[in-house]
């Protein structure tokens, strides 16, 4: 494309408010695939060819379809889909599942197929020398007809299978992409890999034809599928490194850039109530508005109660609160809350409380995360409780779990939402959990609820293990639970070893009792 044409295209985009990113001499166009442009430092290099490679089932066709769809829906840019494997009929039908009405876009001249899918009567016999002039001419025609700015070729394997002369196909692909780039199109082509970790492709296109390489993976980890996307190279432009999780949901792909998230959080000194006045006093006046509290305790210690009081504290202040409940049903929760003197039914009717029940096994980590983020965005709460994190820990891989917590906490912090997560310790006395071990550094405050066996009785203790940025009560205090919730009392003075679970009395005489 000439400089003038490129300039005109930029001007058109600027007029639509679409942002183009410039890095050195490379301009990038936003793909419109959620999360991808962030990872890609703005999008795909404009008027370049990008290879998207992945194993079977790694969502290559969805990626390129989403690329074209977002072009149409968000930037009013037409696209051409050159299909070597699936027929246009199949693609139209498959992409309907994401609500993409390709047929309508075809009628509106926004989307054009160039159908090179296999013929029913088998491959054409070859006698003598040939090239892909027919294909090039058809693609160019489609691009001119629709004024397309995005062209995808899916997938190139079919070409290499049909024509054994790899060098010829490579040089023809080079000719095609060069021609398309000169027409001002950004090209994305796909190739299938045989392994998630190994050679990029078997055909050497990554070296000869592609300016950029993006890898899609669909890996089995601990019997669970995990999808990741990796930008392997952007010639002359910057991008995030390493694998980033993504998921395929009802509106297409969503890339979840986790490592890059917790950068720009401001912190506040505004305190809010924990919902328990005694606990607020222990915290030197309440918890910070943008802080994340982890409540750890064995079953029955009152974690759900603490999260209920935390929410109720917000409801009383006319805040809007959101609860993600992974263990108890809404009815159970509301009944329990009523037994502690809290009217959640009314809070819900007044729009101050939203309860989201979800069975943790129902979907992968990325889907949980995306749904939770969407709900947080819709509800716009000032408080969010998750009861319990451990329920999720059991169904995610450790890596996923950690990524989940990082991403959720940064989502909350960015919007200055107070968060309270509960975590169940596996043993009744003492103990810690995997959750604590792996996420304690990600939370601002940790509150321990522990059973104390003393003189033939089970008592309960509460302790603030840490509270970032604030002095706090460091004593282990006894608490009781009644019809008004949790009551925190005096420190335990007669026992030690509560946190290890090996409690022994400090009053020697008592030990002589038999």
């Amino acid at each position, binding site marked *: 494309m000439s400089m003038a044409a490129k300039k005109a295209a930029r001007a058109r985009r600027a007029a639509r408010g679409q942002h183009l990113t410039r890095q050195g001499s490379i301009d990038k166009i936003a793909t419109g695939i959620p999360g991808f442009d962030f990872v890609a430092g703005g999008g795909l290099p404009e008027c370049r060819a990008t290879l998207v490679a992945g194993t079977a089932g790694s969502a290559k066709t969805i990626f390129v379809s989403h690329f074209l769809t977002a072009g149409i829906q968000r930037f009013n840019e037409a696209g051409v889909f050159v299909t070597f494997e699936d027929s246009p009929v199949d693609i139209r039908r498959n992409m309907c599942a994401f609500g993409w009405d390709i047929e309508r876009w075809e009628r509106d001249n926004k989307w054009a197929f160039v159908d090179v899918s296999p013929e029913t009567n088998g491959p*054409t016999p*070859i*006698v*003598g020398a*040939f090239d*892909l002039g*027919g294909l090039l001419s058809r693609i160019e*025609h489609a691009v001119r007809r629709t004024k397309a700015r995005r062209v995808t070729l899916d997938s190139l394997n079919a070409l290499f299978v049909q024509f054994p002369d790899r060098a010829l196909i490579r040089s023809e692909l080079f000719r095609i992409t060069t021609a398309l780039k000169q027409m001002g199109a950004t090209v994305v082509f796909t190739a299938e890999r045989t392994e998630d970790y190994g050679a990029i492709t078997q055909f050497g296109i990554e070296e000869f034809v592609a300016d950029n390489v993006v890898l899609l993976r669909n890996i089995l980890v601990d019997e669970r599928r995990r999808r990741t996307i990796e930008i392997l190279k952007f010639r002359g432009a910057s991008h995030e490194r390493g694998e980033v999780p993504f998921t395929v949901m009802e509106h297409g792909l969503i890339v979840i850039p986790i490592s890059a998230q917790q950068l720009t959080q401001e912190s506040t000194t505004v305190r809010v109530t924990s919902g328990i006045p005694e606990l607020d006093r222990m915290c030197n006046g309440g918890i910070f508005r943008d802080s994340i509290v982890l409540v750890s305790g064995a079953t029955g210690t009152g974690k759900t109660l603490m999260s209920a009081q935390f929410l109720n504290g917000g409801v009383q202040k006319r805040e809007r609160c959101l609860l993600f409940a992974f263990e108890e049903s809404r009815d159970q929760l509301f009944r329990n809350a009523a037994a502690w003197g809290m009217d959640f039914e009314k809070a819900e009717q007044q729009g101050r409380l939203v309860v989201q029940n979800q069975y943790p096994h129902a979907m992968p980590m990325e889907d949980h995360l995306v749904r939770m983020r969407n709900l947080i965005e819709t509800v716009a709460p000032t408080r969010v409780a998750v009861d319990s994190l451990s329920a999720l820990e059991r169904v995610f891989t450790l890596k996923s779990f950690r990524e989940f917590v990082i991403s959720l906490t940064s989502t909350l912090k960015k919007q200055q939402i107070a968060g309270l997560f509960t975590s169940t310790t596996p043993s009744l006395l003492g103990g810690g959990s995997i959750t604590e071990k792996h996420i304690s550094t990600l939370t601002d405050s940790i509150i321990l609820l522990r059973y104390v066996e003393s003189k033939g009785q089970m008592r309960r203790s509460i302790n603030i293990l840490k509270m970032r940025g604030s002095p706090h009560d460091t004593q282990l205090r006894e608490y009781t639970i009644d019809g008004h919730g949790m009551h925190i009392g005096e420190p335990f003075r007669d026992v030690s070893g509560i946190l290890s679970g090996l409690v022994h009395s400090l009053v020697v005489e008592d030990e002589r009792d038999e």
Partner: protein
Amino acid sequence: MPRVISFVLYIAGDTVRSQRAIANLRRIGEERFAGRYKLSIIDVHADPASAERDRILTTPTLIKQAPGAARRVTGDLTDFNQVLLALSLASEGDA
């Protein structure tokens, strides 16, 4: 009564390869189907819509449209016998 053979040859521009395919096809026509073949030549650059309709991937591509079922072969048609075999015309010829 010998049947009329109908050929369509797709080429991409006026290149050496296109010229060679046209020359080879004319020679096959004259040698084997003298006086009873029709040939139309379509340049994909000039008529990409036809190329789309006939789903042309490679050039040159020769399509035999009649008689019988349509058959195609791609390349500059250097080997006459292979061309005839590919188009199911081996038994049609004069020689």
